């Protein structure tokens, strides 16, 4: 199908974009990489009066050190994150997750901020940001504010962003000493929507796991931090007993709903399988 008619603006600065957004509000949609918005326009699931194209905003670009952590502009494309040496060093989880996002032709266009603002329940970046305790930087004509990734995702395709706000950047804290991470995802084919995915990190000192973070995607409307499972792993040696205890705790953390292809029971089972693999990987 073809997109319905809409007006189009390509502001040259963030200030200009915020003015446009303040003026047009809910009648406008922000266009980032367009890899979710343009399909929904083509299929006429969305019919905004105006698209505000963020593609020219330098303020949204770039991957830069911030202290010992990292700041990534919301307009940064998946592909840039995938191949960034700085990301591999300071937020390796992102580099591990990126190859799972759709296909190269999509990763060349889609952006970090676009994916986070879209908040697809099967998307990779939301779970990674929750696992890494990232902070989202949000701007509006009223000023700038910051919100933790854990508070950002509200419901299905719904976030903390108000209609006059633009996601500007994401800040990632410095990795803990000896931090390791792994990103695992099950899909029917590479690039398909995830049945279940897991963004996991932990440090390993004196043979024990510390700072364990397990964030799941594809099991609920928003990313799920598996708190009981994390507690079951914390301070433990990653041996078979620990892994079994953590896998058992997953049942208390997750109540996945069935999707078109995968039953709730299968999703829970697969989440446990991924948990076992992730802990084994983190323990290596």
């Amino acid at each position: 199908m073809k997109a319905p008619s809409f007006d189009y603006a390509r502001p040259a600065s963030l200030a200009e974009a915020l003015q446009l957004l303040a003026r047009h509000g809910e009648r406008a949609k922000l266009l980032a990489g367009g890899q979710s918005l343009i399909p929904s326009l083509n299929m006429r699931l969305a019919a905004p009066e105006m698209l505000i194209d963020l593609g020219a905003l330098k303020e949204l670009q770039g991957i830069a050190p911030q202290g010992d952590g990292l700041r990534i502009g919301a307009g940064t494309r998946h592909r840039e994150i995938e191949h960034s040496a700085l990301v591999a060093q300071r937020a390796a989880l992102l580099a591990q997750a990126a190859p799972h996002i759709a296909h190269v032709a999509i990763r060349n266009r889609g952006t970090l901020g676009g994916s986070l603002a879209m908040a697809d329940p099967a998307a990779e970046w939301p779970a990674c940001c929750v696992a890494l305790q990232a902070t989202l930087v949000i701007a509006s004509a009223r000023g700038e504010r910051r919100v933790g990734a854990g508070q950002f995702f509200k419901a299905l395709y719904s976030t903390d962003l108000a209609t006059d706000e633009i996601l500007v950047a994401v800040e990632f804290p410095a990795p803990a000493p000896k931090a390791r991470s792994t990103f695992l995802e099950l899909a029917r084919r590479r690039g398909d929507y995830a049945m279940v995915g897991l963004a996991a990190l932990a440090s390993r000192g004196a043979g024990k796991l510390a700072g364990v973070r397990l964030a799941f995607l594809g099991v609920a409307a928003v990313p799920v931090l598996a708190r009981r499972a994390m507690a079951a792993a914390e301070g433990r040696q990653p041996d078979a007993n620990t892994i079994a205890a953590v896998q058992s705790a997953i049942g208390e953390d997750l109540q996945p709903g069935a999707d078109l292809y995968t039953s709730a029971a299968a999703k829970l089972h697969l989440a446990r399988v991924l948990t076992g693999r992730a802990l084994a990987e983190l323990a290596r």
Partner: protein
Amino acid sequence: MTETSRMEELFETTITVNGTRVTRRVAARTHLVDFLRDELGLTGSHTACEHGVCGACTVRVDGEILRGCLMLAVQANGRTVDTIEGLSDSGEIRDLQAAFHERNALQCGFCTPGVLMTAQDLLRNRPQATRDEIREFLSGNLCRCTGYQAIIDAIEAVLVARRQARSA
């Protein structure tokens, strides 16, 4: 239809397509593949799913492959676009086309332009790819005829041949 009820604003858009600079006035809602096909008559890039799933519309913009149905023509303003016509005419993929021919890597041919664009991106950027990696790289291009085996065979053959040509 509601579109006819008001004048649609047109945006002057200049794109270098297969080496030639073209300027047209386009509606914002026109995606790149419709622009290439309808405005320029370059019908090698195909429109099928028009929501980014099938890969039949794959084109190269500023040297990178993307879904032509998921980029607006106005977003390509000032950029360089290469289509299957350009890659074919320049001889850039002559060996790839020959390998597809030899191995029957196409039947109806509908997906073929997109598959060739994707395959050429792999050949350029991942010359060391394994067979599994070729398969994975092609996962975003749907083919309903061949069962993929012959496509993977053809790409692998060219990968090996180009590698040998470089080391010779």
